């Protein structure tokens, strides 16, 4: 790790559940604008790592720092407002709302709530709602979901539901996006589109991405840097080529 990594850093992050050590002194740094991938066999602790970074679980030990902000001391809401967004391995959309409403919820992060104002129908609130709508429609458009605005998420094909989760996460206008197995369950065509979307998010939106996935092609083509986890520990880290040829990585994957 060099000092260009002061965008995001994890230092000796550990998490145990009773007797199980899910994460063991995981340390890594991410540069701004990087696509940093985390791979490893099932149960290696990748989703736990995301849970800890996003604040959904506290870490047992260690530090997580985003541009000088100590994420490990913050709660979920504050971490999100600091600019961290995520998608989920098993899609967690809101089935009782439309596609548009799902993304609109994503756009709430930086707005005022104004309970009493809203109840009394003050025009300012309605204007803010219009702005939110425009932003939400923009995200849906960008991710090519605009045709489904008024549908329920459950009526969308699986691949599009995953894309919707990304749109919703983008609504919070993050600086760091955690993608948890975005390619799982997608066919090759959809994976190709996903790759373009991720690249676009990095190039156009200038969002730093932490990517967890099992699809080797996707990881190899996209990643600037890869970290391999196994049994909660960092096995190795490096560029795509370095990792691809590391015998330990091959053993870890084949061994499972």
């Amino acid at each position, binding site marked *: 790790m060099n000092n260009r990594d002061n965008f995001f850093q994890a230092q000796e992050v550990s998490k145990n559940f009773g007797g199980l050590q899910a994460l063991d002194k995981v340390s890594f740094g991410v540069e701004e604008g990087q696509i940093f991938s985390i791979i490893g066999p099932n149960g290696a602790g990748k989703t736990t790592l995301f849970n800890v970074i*996003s604040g*959904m679980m506290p870490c047992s030990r260690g530090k997580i720092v985003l541009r000088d902000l100590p994420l490990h001391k913050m*709660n*979920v*809401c504050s971490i*999100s*407002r600091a600019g961290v*967004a*995520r998608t*989920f391995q098993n899609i*967690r959309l*809101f*089935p*009782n*709302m439309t596609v548009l*409403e799902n993304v*609109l*919820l*994503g756009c*709430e*992060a*930086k*707005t005022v*709530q104004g*309970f009493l104002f*809203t*109840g*009394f*129908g003050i025009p300012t*609130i309605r204007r*803010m*709602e219009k702005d*939110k709508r425009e932003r939400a429609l923009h995200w849906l458009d960008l991710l090519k979901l605009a045709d489904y605005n008024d549908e329920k998420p459950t009526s969308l094909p699986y691949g599009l539901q995953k894309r919707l989760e990304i749109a*919703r*996460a983008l*609504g*919070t206008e993050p600086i760091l996006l955690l993608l948890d197995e975005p390619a799982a369950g997608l066919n090759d065509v959809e994976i190709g589109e996903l790759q373009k979307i991720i690249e676009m998010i990095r190039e156009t939106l200038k969002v730093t991405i932490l990517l967890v996935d099992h699809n080797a092609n996707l990881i190899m083509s996209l990643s600037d840097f890869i970290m391999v986890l196994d049994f909660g520990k960092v096995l190795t880290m490096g560029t795509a080529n370095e990792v691809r040829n590391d015998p330990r990585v091959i053993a870890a994957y084949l061994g499972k």
Partner: protein
Amino acid sequence: MKTVFLKSYKTILLFFLLFLLPVALNKPFIYTILNVSGINALTVLGLLLLVGYAGQISFGHAGFMALGAYTSAIVVVKLNMPVLIGVLSGFIITSIVAGLLAIPVLKLKGYYLAMATLAFGIIFSKLVIELKELTGGPVGIGEIPPFSVGDLILHGEEAYFILIWSIVFIVYQFCKNIEASHIGRMLKGINTDEDVVSCLGVDVKRIKIIVFVFSAVLASLSGSLYAHYMKYISPEVFSADNSVFLIMMVFLGGTRYVWGALLGSLLLNFLPEVLRAYKDYSIGLYGLALVFIVLLMPEGLSAFLVKVYAIISKSFKIQNGVPS
């Protein structure tokens, strides 16, 4: 303001019809039922937001009604203050209590939240009975002055109808605005998956507390109005059973549409009259109704009626050769 009235002409018409109902049927006592329904509706509207939308179940809201009722009664009867001060005091005390309670209580979820609020409701009614010097104990407080604003003293059922249902109208519009707004979205999101809503940068804790306190204050208003309308309150009126009754109104009326709250209150205040002969069985029948609703129409009667209406009007259009 004008737009509000124009858009809600249907509601105003409905309230007007309700006003005429006792006259039309020549049964003035119906005003009492309508008035109590209206009073309940205020609490039920608040509960609709809290329970129906945000999914935070509370079996203790009769306790907040009691807080409003007793505070107002004590302030007016024992301290000789005007009624509005009494009602305002009820608001203040209730917001403080609800605010303090909300912080630990809303950390609980599901069954634990339900049990905790039930526990609060029971504790509260026991406290009311025990603190005899303040609350009159099991005997309650009587001879509560009627509702008055300055020199205007309210007399007669019609006057109370206008007072109560005007307030209901305002609160109803307020709740409709909330439901249709970004806050309504947040509440529904919280109901489905609270953690994800947090992940989207929404301060879930804060909004839950706001809605909780709001619903408590509405209950307090409800209780204060009850005190000055009935002019007598006792612990029985605000027991744990009544908290359950209020929740019943929410679910019977339905959580899909805000007017479900009005439907629920009216139904559960009129039904006991209709079922007067079966008074002892009535709770059991309501219980059965609840089970049926949960199993067959979980969104309540209002959603059911809307669906039925849609089916009927569709078949009408087909019959008349009009493409639907």
